[in-house]
């Protein structure tokens, strides 16, 4: 079956099977990651087996290391019976446990076979847990297969179910032309088109008519004409060639319409009709129908399908978070995808928020001193103008300098100030890595992303712990960009400045430097003691508070500030600020 006779490139795609082919291709290109399981159903002779085999062939061609298994349910039953008789039922299960892509045909034959169903259920669970792909084909949808275990039914229906309809006129013509090209057959003008007008329930029947036509041609000294096709069909059906006048009229009109409408418009109109039939708003596509020039149809259709899939995912997520959100109109309109994302993000923030900052850590409890005054001042700016002044704010310093405290304190202060910041995600880099791993295991990465993107501000502690965690870095890169694009504040802490971070991608390090990088040192014991000393009544100004350091910064005599630029380029200025005992990186953009 997987020897290459059945491929995607020799499968004629039409309106009746376009979705099935698109899903099959997607599965073949990335098994286990898109539609799993993928379930085709149709009357026999419409290409289910061809598609199954094409998936297997294409997947193996792309990744020769994949183990792909094709079998019909009857074959599965036979193998299971033999294994049970030999007392090797366990080996039977193991044999399939190594399969990467399992292609199961004639699934309707499971009806009433309790033992096979039970074995298949186990196999199903094992393959799904291992992220392996299952593709099934049947002559009816899962829910119409009688006597099947409900658990198995649920699993079969848990991915994408696609039906394949009988080919319409244009597809029948294309199939006939493809078959003739394959076999080197040539017919006169209009002959194949006339044959395509013969109502055929499936492709096999159509092929049968073509075979009869070939036989007829071989007996005829002159080339066959369209009228001969009508006579042949009438003879074969034991009737006179006078067809139903209304049907004949409709066929004639269909033929003329298909010639009159630009092919691209016809294809797009069919695409629109299909999605409109599924309740999806298609106004966006309809605008292209009125264009004079054809758009890039492949891209347009792929983008639309992708947006619809995204909306479907969002609707499922929304329903999971709050059942009241299911069925909203916004989930039916690809043009409102951003709005739908917003709905789910808000639901995420309300029902499944990301980790919040520790509420015990506030700015007031921080001891201000010479070593952290810049960090405190920057923090105050960020709290006052989130997302506007220093974004990201990158605080680095040795262990115990209080940067974690400050990061959480900023998060709490942002939450407390309101003004559009209600959800603050606060997480350590190592916890974030762990979350990403779990999300990957549970196929919940998209949900993870949304949880964080739903936040109004992001605080990540100890970003140096991302060293070598490439996937988490990748996720952070996209999250970071999304936050900054939306004007949301990002605060990062680390044990070293961005330029000195080990094993962190350059694209992340440069982004960390894009806002304000500020060093934070340990506050001296004397300053701590001073902080703990009760302030005499009426002498509050003497306490080393943030306000104090604000004032202090303002009043530092210019001559005492020893600017010694370490680096000046178009984006930033790095100076040693002697008077403040620190280094400042100032964003110039």
């Amino acid at each position, binding site marked *: 079956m997987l020897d290459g006779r059945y491929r995607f490139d020799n499968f004629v795609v039409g*309106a009746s099977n376009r979705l099935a082919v698109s899903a099959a291709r997607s599965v073949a290109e990335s098994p286990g990651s898109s539609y799993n399981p993928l379930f085709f159903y149709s009357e026999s002779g419409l290409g289910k087996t061809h598609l199954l085999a094409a998936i297997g062939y294409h997947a193996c061609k792309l990744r020769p290391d994949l183990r792909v298994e094709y079998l019909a349910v009857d074959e599965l039953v036979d193998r299971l019976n033999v294994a049970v008789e030999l007392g090797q039922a366990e080996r039977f299960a193991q044999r399939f446990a190594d399969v990467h892509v399992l292609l199961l045909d004639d699934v309707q034959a499971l009806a009433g076979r309790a033992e096979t169903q039970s074995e298949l259920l186990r196999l199903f669970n094992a393959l799904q847990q291992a992220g392996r792909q299952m593709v099934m084909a049947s002559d009816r949808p899962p829910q119409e297969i009688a006597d099947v275990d409900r658990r198995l039914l649920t699993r079969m229906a848990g991915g994408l179910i696609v039906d394949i309809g009988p080919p319409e006129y*244009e597809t029948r013509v294309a199939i006939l032309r493809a078959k003739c090209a394959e076999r080197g057959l040539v017919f006169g003008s209009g002959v194949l088109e006339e044959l395509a007008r013969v109502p055929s329930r499936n492709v096999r029947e159509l092929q049968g008519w073509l075979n009869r036509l070939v036989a007829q041609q071989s007996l005829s000294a002159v080339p066959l004409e369209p009228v001969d096709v009508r006579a042949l069909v009438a003879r074969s059906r034991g009737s006179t060639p006078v067809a*139903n*006048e*209304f049907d*004949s*009229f*409709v066929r*004639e*009109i*269909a033929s*003329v*319409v*298909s*010639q*009159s*409408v630009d092919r691209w*418009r*016809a*294809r*797009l*109109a*069919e*695409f*629109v*009709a299909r999605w409109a039939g599924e309740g999806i708003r298609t106004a966006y596509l*309809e605008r292209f*129908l*009125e264009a004079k020039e054809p758009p890039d149809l492949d891209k347009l259709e792929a983008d639309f399908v992708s947006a619809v899939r995204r909306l479907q995912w969002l609707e499922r997520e929304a329903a999971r978070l709050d059942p009241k959100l299911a069925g909203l109109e916004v989930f039916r309109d690809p043009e409102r995808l951003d709005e739908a994302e917003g709905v789910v993000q808000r639901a995420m923030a309300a029902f499944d928020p990301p980790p919040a900052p520790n509420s015990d850590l506030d700015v007031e409890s921080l001891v201000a001193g010479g070593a952290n005054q810049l960090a405190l001042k920057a923090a105050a700016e960020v709290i006052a103008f989130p997302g506007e002044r220093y974004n990201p704010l990158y605080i680095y310093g040795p262990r115990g300098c209080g940067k974690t405290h400050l990061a959480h304190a900023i998060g709490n202060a942002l939450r407390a100030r309101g003004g559009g910041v209600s959800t603050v995600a606060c997480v350590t880099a190592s916890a974030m890595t762990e979350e990403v791993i779990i999300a990957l295991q549970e196929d919940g990465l998209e949900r993870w992303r949304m949880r964080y993107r739903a936040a109004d501000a992001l605080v990540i502690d100890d970003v140096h712990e991302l060293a070598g965690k490439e996937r988490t870095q990748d996720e952070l890169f996209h999250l970071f960009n999304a936050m900054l694009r939306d004007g949301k504040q990002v605060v990062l802490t680390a044990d070293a400045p961005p330029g000195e971070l080990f094993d962190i991608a350059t694209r992340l390090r440069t982004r960390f430097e894009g806002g304000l990088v500020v060093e934070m040192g340990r506050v001296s014991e004397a300053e701590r003691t001073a902080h703990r000393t009760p302030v005499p009544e009426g002498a509050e100004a003497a306490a080393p508070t943030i306000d104090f350091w604000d004032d202090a910064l303002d009043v530092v005599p210019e001559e005492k500030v020893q600017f010694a630029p370490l680096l000046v380029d178009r984006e930033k200025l790095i100076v040693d600020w002697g008077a403040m005992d620190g280094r400042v990186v100032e964003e110039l953009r």
Partner: protein
Amino acid sequence: MPIFNYAAREITCKIVYYGPGRSGKTSSLQAIYAKIPAGRRGTMYSLATQGDLTLFFDYLPLELGRISGYLTRFQLYTVPGQPQYAQTRRLVLHGADGIVFVADSQLARMEENLDSLRDMHEALLVHGVDPRSVPLVFHYNKQDLPEPLVARPAELDAVLNFRGMPSFPGDALRGRGVFEALRAVSVQVLRRFAEPAHPRI
């Protein structure tokens, strides 16, 4: 109203059955109606009829379903043939995409056929349409009558069909030639779409 409505994904063709009174226009629509499968049959409207005469018009919507992604429908109208309803005929003719001229094959009605044809040309000109540009077919009805009473198709062609348009002898009461005429005019109408300019009446 354009024939091809891309936004709504609809193709709508208006076909008008024209001809003298009692030539068989309503019978043609009834013959078509009778051959539409029950599941796809809409309602045929006969507005303001008296006896077997059409005083206003008949209307038969024909839904052909989705073809190449377009919901395709034909709207078939008849006009009242009696001379005094010229205004109604003009109104019904407005917006027509094609015309089936139903001629009465009886020799005794030849003059009325000619009058009706002239009337049709005038009505088209009133709408600012060149009669030569409109898809037109002839249905020579009542060919089932005894030979001495009817003109043969060639004779009818010689008198009425000087532009050499498709013509179909038939018998509307039994449905002969009716679908052939409808098919021919419909194909002409749809093919005109491919032309750069396709004015409607």
